[in-house]
C-alpha cells in the first residue's frame, strides 16, 4: 500500500497563508500528484536504501505549500530533500516545517516565479528494503566444469509499495561515514561537530554522488527487448564498490520478495583439490571446488557479492533420464569474490577419501644436562664426558616419525595438498618434496590415482630447552628414522 504521499495544498481558497504554519486549517483542499518515476538504490552493507522519486507539479506564482507524509513507513525524516529538476532558477524552497501536531509529515513552502508544470525530485533514506545474492553451482558428472547461476533477491519490509521502480543494488561495503566526513571537511566543517541533521544531509549527498554514474548505465540499458527474456543486470564498478542496475523497472511491493537472475556461466572450468589446512578448514582433509571469477569462466564482469551457494553435481549413472539428475553436495555462504579472484567451495570431508595420521615412532636424542647451579652443559653421549649426579636435562631433540595415510576410493585421480604447521626450532625430514609455505609451515602434496593408497612418511625433529636456537622450520630431504620396535622385531 502507498503511504508516502505528496499533497499540493490549495491555500488560496482559504484566502490566508500563515508564515509559521502553512496547513494549520480545518478546511483544506489538496491534490495528490502521483509518482512519475521512482528509483531505489539498495545497499547491502547497511540497512539503507536511497529512494529518489519524481513527480510533476503545477506551480503558481507566489507561495506553493507542498505536504510530504510517510505514515507507518521507515523513512528517516531528516534525510528528506526536495530538488527541482526544471525551472530550478524560478523555484525555491522558502522554508520547511515539521508540524508539531502531526507525526511523519513535513511541509515545504515553495516560492515560485514560474506558473506552470515543473518536475520535482524527492529523495530520502529508508530502511527495510534489502537485497542479497545467491548462487547455484552444478558441476558436470566428471567434475571438470560447472554451470554457475547468480541471483539477486530484493525484499521490501519498508511499509511502502514501490511500483515500476528502477532498482540498483550496491555491492561492497561502503563506509558512508567516511564520505560524510570528507564532504563535511570540504565544506569547511569539523565532522565531529556535525549535528544529526547535518550528518544526514552529508550522507544523502554522499549516497547521491555514489550513484551518479549509474544514471548513465540505466539510460544505456533502457532498451526493452522485443521478446520476453530474463532481465539483464548491468554491472558497473564505481570506486570501491559495484552497482548492479536491474534492467527496466520492477514492482517492489511492501512484504514482497523477488528474485532475479544476475548472471549465468555455462561451463566454468572447475578444479577439484583436497586440502589439509587446519587453520582454514579444521583438522580434516576437505574437498574443494575451485573456480575463478574471470572471463575464461564466463564470469568476471563484476565481483560476486556475499551470498549462499548451493552446490550440486550432475549424475552420470543413467538412472535419471539422460543423466540430468542431480546429487546434492553442499550449501555454504561465500564472501565477496573480487574480479579475477578464486571462488573456493568447501564440500567438506569426502568419505571416499581416507586420511589418517599415524605416529610410527617418537624418540629423543642430543640430550644435554646441566649441573645444578653451574652454567655448564654436557651432552650425554659425548665420549669421555663425566656427568655429575646432581644434573638435570636442559636440552633435547624430540623426534616424531609420522605417516599420513591417504586412501583414494573415488573413481578418479585426486589432487591432495597438505599444509601443516611445524612449530618451534624444528626440522622436517622427508622424501615428499616438501616446500616451505612460511616460517613455521611446510606444504607438500601430489596426485593420487583412483583406488590408490599412499603413505606420506616424514620425521619432525623439534629442538627443546637449551637446544632451541631458532624459531623456524627447516626442510631436509632425507629418510625418516625407522620404527625402533620394528628394528627389534626384525633383529
Amino acid at each position, binding site marked *: 500500500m502507498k503511504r508516502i504521499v505528496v499533497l499540493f495544498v490549495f491555500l488560496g481558497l482559504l484566502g490566508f497563508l500563515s508564515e509559521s504554519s502553512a496547513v494549520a486549517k480545518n478546511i483544506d483542499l489538496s491534490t495528490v500528484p502521483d509518482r512519475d518515476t521512482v528509483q531505489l538504490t539498495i545497499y547491502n552493507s547497511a540497512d539503507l536504501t536511497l529512494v529518489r522519486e519524481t513527480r510533476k507539479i503545477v506551480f503558481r506564482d507566489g507561495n506553493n505549500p507542498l505536504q510530504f507524509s510517510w505514515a507507518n513507513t521507515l523513512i528517516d525524516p531528516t534525510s528528506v530533500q526536495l530538488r527541482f529538476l526544471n525551472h530550478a532558477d524560478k523555484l525555491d524552497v522558502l522554508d520547511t516545517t515539521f508540524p508539531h501536531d502531526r507525526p511523519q509529515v513535513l511541509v515545504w513552502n515553495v516560492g515560485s516565479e514560474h506558473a506552470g508544470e515543473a518536475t520535482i525530485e524527492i529523495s530520502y533514506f529508508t530502511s527495510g528494503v534489502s537485497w542479497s545474492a*545467491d548462487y*547455484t553451482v552444478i558441476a558436470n558428472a566428471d567434475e571438470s566444469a560447472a554451470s554457475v547461476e547468480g541471483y539477486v533477491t530484493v525484499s521490501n519490509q519498508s511499509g511502502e509499495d514501490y511500483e515500476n521502480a528502477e532498482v540498483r543494488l550496491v555491492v561492497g561495503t561502503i563506509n558512508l561515514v567516511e564520505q560524510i566526513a570528507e564532504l563535511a571537511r570540504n565544506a569547511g566543517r569539523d565532522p565531529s561537530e556535525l549535528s544529526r541533521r547535518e550528518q544526514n544531509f552529508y550522507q544523502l549527498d554522499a549516497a547521491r554522488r555514489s550513484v551518479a554514474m549509474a544514471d548513465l548505465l540505466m539510460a544505456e540499458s533502457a532498451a526493452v527487448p522485443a521478446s*520476453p*527474456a*530474463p*532481465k539483464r543486470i548491468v554491472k558497473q564498478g564505481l570506486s570501491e564498490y559495484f552497482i548492479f542496475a536491474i534492467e527496466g523497472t520492477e*514492482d517492489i*511491493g511492501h*512484504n*514482497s*520478495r*523477488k*528474485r*532475479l*537472475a544476475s548472471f549465468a556461466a555455462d561451463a566454468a572450468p572447475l578444479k577439484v583439490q583436497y586440502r589439509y589446512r587446519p587453520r582454514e578448514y579444521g583438522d580434516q582433509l576437505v574437498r574443494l571446488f575451485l573456480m575463478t571469477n574471470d572471463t575464461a569462466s564466463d564470469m568476471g564482469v563484476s565481483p560476486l557479492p556475499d551470498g549462499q551457494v*548451493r552446490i*550440486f553435481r550432475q549424475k552420470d549413472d543413467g*538412472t*535419471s*533420464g539422460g543423466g*540430468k*539428475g*542431480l*546429487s*546434492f*553436495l553442499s*550449501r555454504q555462504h561465500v564472501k565477496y569474490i573480487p574480479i579475477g579472484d578464486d571462488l573456493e567451495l568447501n564440500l567438506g570431508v569426502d*568419505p*571416499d577419501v581416507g586420511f589418517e595420521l*599415524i*605416529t*610410527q*615412532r*617418537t*624418540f*629423543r*636424542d642430543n640430550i644435554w*644436562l646441566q*649441573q645444578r647451579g653451574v652454567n655448564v652443559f654436557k651432552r*650425554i653421549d659425548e665420549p669421555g664426558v663425566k*656427568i*655429575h*649426579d*646432581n*644434573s*638435570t*636435562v636442559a636440552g*633435547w631433540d*624430540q623426534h616424531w*616419525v609420522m605417516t599420513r595415510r591417504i*586412501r583414494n*576410493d573415488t573413481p578418479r585421480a585426486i589432487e591432495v595438498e597438505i599444509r601443516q604447521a611445524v612449530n618451534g626450532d624444528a626440522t622436517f625430514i622427508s622424501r615428499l618434496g616438501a616446500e616451505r609455505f612460511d616460517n613455521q609451515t611446510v606444504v607438500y602434496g601430489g596426485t593420487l590415482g583412483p*583406488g590408490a*593408497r599412499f603413505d606420506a612418511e616424514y620425521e619432525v625433529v623439534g629442538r627443546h630447552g637449551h637446544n632451541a636456537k631458532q624459531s623456524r622450520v627447516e626442510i631436509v630431504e632425507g629418510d625418516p628414522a625407522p*620404527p*625402533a*620396535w*620394528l628394528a*627389534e*622385531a626384525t633383529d
Partner: protein
Amino acid sequence: MVSRVYRGVLIPLDAENLLMKPLGRMLLIPVMMIALLVPSLAEARIKLITLPVRERVEIQLDHDTATLVEEERVVPLVQGVNQVDFSWANTQIDPSTIVFRVLGPPAPESGDVDTPEVNVLSVTYPPGENALVWQVSSSASTSVTVRISYLIGGLTKGFNYRAVAAYDESTLTLSQYIRVQNFAGEAYDDTEIYAGLGDTFLKPIGVNETKQMLVERFENLPVKKTYTADLHRFGWLDQTQYKLRVPMHYRIENAADAGLGQAALPAGKVRIFQKDSPDGETPGGATTAFLGEDFAPHTPIGNHADLFLGVAQDIVVKRTVEARKDDRLAGNLYDRRVTMKYEIENFKDEAVTLNLAEQIEALRRELGLASGQSAEWVLGEATTMRDGLIIDETNQQQITFAVDLPARNGDEAEKITHTLEIVFKNQW
C-alpha cells in the same frame, strides 16, 4: 466449473480436495492468463489453472545428511509470460534450495517439436506462504518438462545388515539393507530411490512409512573369528583376580579377494546368526540361531570391520605387573623398564589364537609414567612373544602379539605364561 478462491487464484473444486488434504501438499500451478497478460501476480484476479501432476520423482539419499528430491512435471506454457506457482504445506521443504530447470519438450514429442525458448524471468515469494511463483517466458505455446529439485527434511535413510554364518563359522552371507523413513509429510508414488550405492529402487513411499529394501547380498564371505585381550580397550572381566575381558569378534575384510571391496560399507547395525547344522545335513535346510548384534562403523575399501559378538569366557587371561625398574643414564635421565606377565588358559576344546595387545600411552598412565610428550619405547629382553608380533597392528601407540593356545586336553587346560618387557627410553 465450480471453483473457489484460494490465495487469490481460482482452483477447480476437484483440485481443492487435494489442497484440503490434512497431510503434506505440494502443488505446481502454471497460470494461463487468457484475457491479457498481467505482469504482477498480485494484480491478476481471473485466471485459469492447470495442475500438472508429477511425472517422475527421484529421491537422492547419497548425501550424508541431506535428502534431495527431484520431481519432473509437464507444464503447459502459452507464448509469452507464464506464472508457475509452486506451493507446499506441512512438509519440510527448504525453500532456499529449490532449483527449477527446464528440460525441454516431453519425451514422446521431443522428436517432432522444436524446442521452444523458455526462460525463467524471476521468482517471487508471496508473503507469509510456503510458496513461490516463477515467471516463465516461452517463445511458443507448448508443453515442457521441468525438473524441480529441493532438499527436504524428515526423509532419512539408514543401513543395516543381516549376517548368517556357516555352521563352521568360516564364511557368512551378508545382506545389506537400506531403510528409508518418510516423516517429511509428503507421499511419493513410484519413486526412484537412490541410496548412494547399488541400484535405484522404484518404490512408492507413503507418509510416515518406513520401507526397508535389500541393496545387495554377498554370499560366502570369508570371516575370521578373533579373540582379543586388551585391557585399555576392553577392560577387566574380574579386576580383583586380574582377569581380562576377552571379546570375540567376526572380522570381515572389505576387499575384492574377500568378495567385497567394490564400495565402502556404510555404518549400520549388524544382526548375526549362525546355521545350526552343516549345509545338506538337515532335511529342509539348517535353521539359524541368533548370535548377537553390533554396530559396524563406516568401513572403507581395504579396511575391515570387527563385529563384537560376545565375551569368550573359556579363554582366561590374567594380567599382572611383573616388574618395574629404572635405569639411571645420568643426572635425572632414566630408561624405565616395565614387565607385564600374562597367564593364559584356553578351556575350549579347539585350539585358538589370542591377540594380546597393549595401548602404550594408556599403559604409561596406568603406571604413572606419563609425561607431556609421548615416549620412545623398545621391547626389552624379557619379552617372550617376539615371534608373534603382528606388524600391521603395531605402531607407536599400540603393540599386538598373536599367541597360539592349544585346545583343552580332557579336563585340563594348559597354562601358558608370557612376559612383555617395554623400555621407555630417555625419561625424566
